[in-house]
């Protein structure tokens, strides 16, 4: 956990008080909507179909139980009793009143939560691996760097009005759970030949209308230089990024138009020209931030406690354990993923009651800590293995033990036309129908790892391009249609999916997806070959033939 000090707290309170003044000026007419829009966006406030939507940051996906309870309080007091966890370690509330927003922000500020820069053309929430600090084999805890970058880019005097939004993600593990290759800047922590810790810096990833996988701009930037290097990238982008067309304003377009070599050269020249501007992180500075992350006092526990051996006779427990429980770096402990993808439920939603209950379970079983991942699930990062059977029972009662993590019903979906003013088509009902079609856990296990991602429009908040199966809602003559891609992935081997055929109407989407899965089961060369590997081996054609032969 990162503990805010007095300075962090003061800054958040100052921001809340400024926003309170801005809201007041808006409601009195002193600020026009045109002027206010940017100010509210910089504080995470959108206007959606039904109401204002409020997006709160969960930096690097780490929450304390106290913070989660406060999010539950906001859901209950200012909203309709639930929240939606997003693909970027944020939570959204859908029904907030503008006049009450300053109070909601103020309540959150008391526990060190903010909504600064969760929207707008500035640096967004710096995200990371939801298993940071507990994943086996990690180089080091990436959240220390996330926090250093978070601070540096919060209310940055030069980069608060960039051409477009800007997202950074960091990973320190071999397997990328932070989807760094679809970010404006992706940072992979690693050690160079001399054993020095630094970053491979990738730039220009992003989805939306023109999707790109990020390219490496520099294979190794020492940790101490990462802030100045990011500053150089941002300065080049701020000056040269396109501002004439909102769809061409992301850094990916600049990188694409200049070419990665030319862009890298510009950044390198700027970085050299900067000289020493006080951004070099010396050992003491890094340790200062590191010292404010606290880690649990783990017990020395057996690898295989009796409680676990006994519970192994319960097939429901075993199914859940095999699916949702992952290896921890400390013996005797596990990382437990809490599926927010119940059969028939809206993906990523949690009720205030669930949030409160998870906070209680975190206190009881996970040293008061909760994590949020980009797959829109929660995790308890430090669960003693002996507690797993009791935790399972508690989670099951809450509807948070669906054994579908990374399986076909663990669907990533944006809010779609049910909430979003940009959407062309609905996402959530499609996801709900798919979870019903694949509700049988034996079938889902048989299918194996399969990520379905759904976006309700080309802005791609549901990351459809990088879903093993991607579903994109479009509009044709006032009707909802869906384009389906296969073969995408968001991990270290990130890849954009390929269109499998013509768009299909709303009512046929689930049938087509079932047929695609059927085709995969028939075509895979062995049960262990994952969907995405079969597509890679065979290409799209054999699957297309089977799916569209009868259509």
């Amino acid at each position, binding site marked *: 956990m990162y503990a805010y000090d007095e300075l962090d707290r003061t800054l958040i309170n*100052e921001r809340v008080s400024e926003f309170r003044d801005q809201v007041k000026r808006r409601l009195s007419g002193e600020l026009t909507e045109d002027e206010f829009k940017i100010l509210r966006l910089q504080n995470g406030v959108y206007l959606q179909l039904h109401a204002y939507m409020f997006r709160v940051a969960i930096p690097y996906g780490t929450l304390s139980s106290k913070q989660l309870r406060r999010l539950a309080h906001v859901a209950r007091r200012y909203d309709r009793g639930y929240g939606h966890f997003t693909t970027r370690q944020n939570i959204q509330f859908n029904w907030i009143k503008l006049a009450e927003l300053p109070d909601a922000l103020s309540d959150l500020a008391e526990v060190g939560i903010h909504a600064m820069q969760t929207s707008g053309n500035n640096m967004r929430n710096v995200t990371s691996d939801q298993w940071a600090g507990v994943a086996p084999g990690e180089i080091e805890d990436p959240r220390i760097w996330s926090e250093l970058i978070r*601070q540096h880019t*919060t209310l940055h005097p030069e980069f*608060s009005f*960039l051409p477009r939004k800007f997202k950074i993600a960091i990973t320190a593990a071999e397997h990328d759970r932070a989807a760094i290759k679809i970010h404006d800047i992706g940072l992979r922590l690693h050690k160079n030949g001399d054993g020095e810790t630094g970053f491979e810096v990738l730039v220009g990833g992003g989805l939306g209308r023109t999707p790109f996988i990020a390219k490496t701009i520099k294979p190794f930037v020492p940790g101490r230089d990462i802030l100045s290097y990011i500053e150089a990238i941002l300065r080049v982008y701020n000056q040269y990024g396109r501002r004439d067309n909102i769809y061409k304003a992301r850094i990916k377009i600049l990188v694409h138009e200049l070419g990665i070599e030319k862009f890298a050269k510009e950044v390198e020249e700027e970085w050299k020209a900067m000289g020493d501007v*006080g951004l070099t992180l010396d050992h003491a500075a890094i340790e200062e931030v590191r010292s404010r992350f606290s880690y649990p006092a783990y017990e020395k526990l057996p690898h295989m406690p009796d409680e676990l051996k006994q519970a192994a006779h319960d097939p429901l427990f075993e199914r859940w354990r095999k699916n949702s429980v992952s290896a921890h770096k400390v013996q005797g402990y596990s990382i437990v993923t809490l599926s927010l993808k119940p059969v028939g439920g809206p993906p990523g939603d949690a009720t205030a009651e669930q949030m409160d209950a998870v906070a209680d379970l975190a206190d009881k079983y996970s040293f008061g800590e909760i994590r949020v991942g980009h797959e829109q699930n929660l995790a308890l990062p430090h669960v003693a293995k002996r507690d797993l059977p009791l935790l399972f029972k508690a989670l099951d009662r809450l509807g948070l033990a669906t054994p579908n993590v990374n399986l076909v019903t663990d669907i990533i979906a944006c809010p779609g036309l049910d909430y979003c003013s940009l959407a062309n088509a609905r996402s959530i009902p499609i996801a709900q129908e798919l979870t019903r079609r694949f509700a049988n856990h034996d079938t889902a296990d048989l299918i194996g790892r399969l990520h379905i991602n759904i976006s309700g429009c080309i802005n791609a908040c549901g990351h459809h391009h990088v879903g093993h199966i991607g579903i994109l809602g479009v509009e044709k003559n006032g009707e909802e249609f869906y384009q389906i891609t296969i073969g995408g992935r968001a991990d270290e081997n990130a890849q954009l999916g390929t269109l499998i055929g013509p768009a299909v109407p709303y009512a046929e989407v689930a049938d087509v997806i079932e047929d695609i899965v059927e085709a995969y089961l028939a075509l895979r060369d062995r049960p262990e070959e994952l969907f995405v590997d079969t597509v890679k081996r065979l290409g799209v054609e054999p699957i297309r033939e089977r799916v569209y032969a009868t259509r």
Partner: protein
Amino acid sequence: MPLVKQGRITTDLFVHVADGAELPGDGAVLVTAERFLADPEALLRRPGKLGVLWPNNRSLDDLVPHLDRLASVALVFPTFRDGRAYSQARLLRERYGYDGELRATGQILRDQFVFMTRAGFDAFEVKKDADADAFAQTMKRYSVFYQPTGDGRVTALNRRMQLRHSESAGQ
């Protein structure tokens, strides 16, 4: 449109002179980059202070050689969402050592004052009277700053390190 300088609403001594318009015989003038670059020497010889209005999409390279003879550089915010001039301001102050008046012009609202001041601006052509009136108050909104810039404000990290230092020295 009120001008805020050194934290106070002041009379603007500079006259914006449009391209093609005749220059007044004396007194301070602000001219466009194009007019300035067409004949910098003639303009600099003229009695009265000279300022240049520099567009936010033009490299500073042509401006830099003249900086020490200019009384004002005005940078442009065509809309307040266009933040290119923040980078120009920091470069002028921090890299090229410009210490004359650095003026923000365009859509300037109170909500940018802190950012602009931190980037090096010290004069503001403010759009609304109420915002100009609120300048001093607005500048007091923030007491914590995460980034080092040329304005010399102590960063949060520096304050933490000082605190650590004094704590360990006191032991």
